[in-house]
């Protein structure tokens, strides 16, 4: 077992904990950069596109993780922000704005939308907030289908491939690196924010609003900031999403997608950036896995259109019941098991016995 001694305050705000961690993350980075080359060599090009989805979902996951996992505000309507980002980006691209300008404008617009939703959300907590964001998402979806001069309604809106500063990202491999760049950017920004007073204020709000308020955290300001930042990241993901999917229609950004995004952060593990990435891998790679499994299932079951939703539901139920910390929690347990071997105690992670916490009185 490795001991970690703190000898300097600077250690607390380092990006990586120590040299060992830095080494492993650098190795991971190299592996991710080399991956498409390996896949091309193996002639499995199909997977490059699937892994690009992991990156896009990873940005979505970071966005929701900041809001749900770190600030404790539940949004059941994040697909709306994704949609706003995607449509705004596609609209500007269509009107001749270059990629970098369009994505910045898309992020600004979604951030403003986030503030707009965040402001009334300040008065709500828990379940009311979830319901309000759900209502917001349904209204926005209706707007997408009715505002035909911008979104082209159900006729759909084609999005051309990305071109940045004259360089075309038409190729899947090139687009892979573009998405990877934005994911790393988002990770770096989020990690930095979380180490700053802002992030600590968010975490304080999550753990106890009253305690945070007593310590001088401006609840209204920080909650709105969390909403704005989360929506902005979602806008960034939306821009990439638009290019990836190449054809926007209002029925992509449904409540089901919002729920899938929440599933992502829960399965990944709430309250950790690793969790967002684990969850993204899970959500992006599960549909292809189900598609492969369909071949082995009996005809009557495998041909059902709702099968995917049902499997997602089942996994959600199982995770909440048996592994509330998600994949990241399981990862931690396995890591601790080996580092403590043979002294691992199951009780380390045992859920504390909790009586019902009333949310009626706030």
């Amino acid at each position, binding site marked *: 077992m490795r001991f970690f001694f703190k000898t300097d305050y600077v250690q607390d705000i380092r990006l990586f904990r120590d040299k060992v961690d830095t080494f492993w993350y650098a190795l991971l980075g190299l592996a991710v950069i080399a991956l498409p080359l390996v896949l091309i060599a193996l002639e499995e090009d199909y997977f490059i596109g699937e892994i690009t989805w992991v990156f896009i979902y990873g940005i979505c996951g970071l966005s929701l993780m900041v809001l749900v996992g770190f600030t404790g505000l539940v949004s059941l309507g994040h697909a709306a922000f994704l949609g706003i980002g995607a449509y705004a980006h596609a609209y500007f691209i269509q009107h001749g704005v270059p990629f970098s300008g369009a994505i910045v404008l898309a992020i600004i617009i979604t951030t403003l939308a986030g503030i707009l939703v965040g402001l009334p959300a300040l008065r709500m907590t828990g379940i009311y907030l979830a319901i*309000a964001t*759900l*209502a917001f998402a*349904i209204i926005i979806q209706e707007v997408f289908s009715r505002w035909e001069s911008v979104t082209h309604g159900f006729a759909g809106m084609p999005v051309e491939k990305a071109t940045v500063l004259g360089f075309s990202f038409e190729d899947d491999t090139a687009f892979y690196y573009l998405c990877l760049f934005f994911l790393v950017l988002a990770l770096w920004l989020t990690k930095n924010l979380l180490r700053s007073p802002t992030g600590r204020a968010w975490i304080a709000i999550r753990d106890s609003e009253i305690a945070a308020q007593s310590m001088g955290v401006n609840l209204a300001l920080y909650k709105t900031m969390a909403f704005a930042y989360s929506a902005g990241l979602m806008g960034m993901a939306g821009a990439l999403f638009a290019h990836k999917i190449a054809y926007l229609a209002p029925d992509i950004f449904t409540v089901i997608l919002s729920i899938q995004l929440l599933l992502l952060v829960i399965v990944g593990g709430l309250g950790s950036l690793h969790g967002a990435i684990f969850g993204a891998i899970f959500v992006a790679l599960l549909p292809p896995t189900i598609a492969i499994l369909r071949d082995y299932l009996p005809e009557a079951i495998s041909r059902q259109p*709702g099968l995917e939703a049902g499997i997602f539901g*089942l996994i959600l139920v199982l995770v*909440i*019941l048996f592994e509330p910390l998600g994949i990241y929690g399981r990862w931690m347990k396995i890591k601790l098991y080996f580092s403590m071997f043979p002294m691992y105690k199951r009780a380390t992670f045992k859920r504390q016995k909790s009586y*019902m916490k009333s949310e*009626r009185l706030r």
Partner: protein
Amino acid sequence: MNGLAVGCIYGLVALGFVLIYKATELVNFAQGDLLMLGAFIAYMAVVLWGLDYWVGLVIAVLVMAVFGALLDAVILRRVIGQPQFAVVMLTIGLGAMFRTFASVTWGSEIYTLPTPFSAKVTTLGGVTISHEYVSIIVGTMILCAVLYTFFTHTRLGVAMQAASQNQLAAYYMGIPVKLIFSLIWAISAGVAAVAGILLAPVSLIDINIGFIGLKAFAAAVLGGFGSIPGALTGGIIIGLIELYSGAWLPEGFKDVSAYVVLLLMLAVRPQGLFGALGRKKV
């Protein structure tokens, strides 16, 4: 009349939310899917097995009540005390499973449930009234009267009120709180089944009928999440607003009017029309 009847359905589904929320502080996002299951069971009993409509109704309500109680005893009791949104996600997951179950069992076709009220009308003073809508309104009224009597005039009902007001105190008084919670889930699922059966002649039965639950949220919030008369009033208001916005406002507003009202209500008066807002004291 039309809006009133649809509003009654919203009210009934909202009633299901409120019963569970009041008692256990869990919000059941699968309420709409319970409604769907109830309607399908009634369809199976009446059409496939050829039973009488009333027998089918009783069977559906009983089956759903047992199902609701089991759901609580097996799954939902484990998550009490966990963060509220874990429970929300749990019920969303359950709802998705119910829909898949229904699509595997009954297929994704659209069914009609024949009832004694189907396609009958009465003309009263020049106004044509369809029996289906009357059945919904009368059914809702009867159900509410029964529930009201149950909660105020029976030992069990009073015990339920006690358990939902203060679990610990109720437990000290010798009330079996766990059992009571299961029973409340049973009642809630039973109410959902009744709502599904009443709705069946108006809107046909298919696996997506449960999305009506989303609009019932608007009703529950409007009435104050946790007030039983509020849920019904909220449902009726939402039903009427939907009807009139469909008639007077441009196309597209009908579908979102319920949610616009919901957002406005949350922004202006989050505690709802009938709710009381408490503040935690430290």
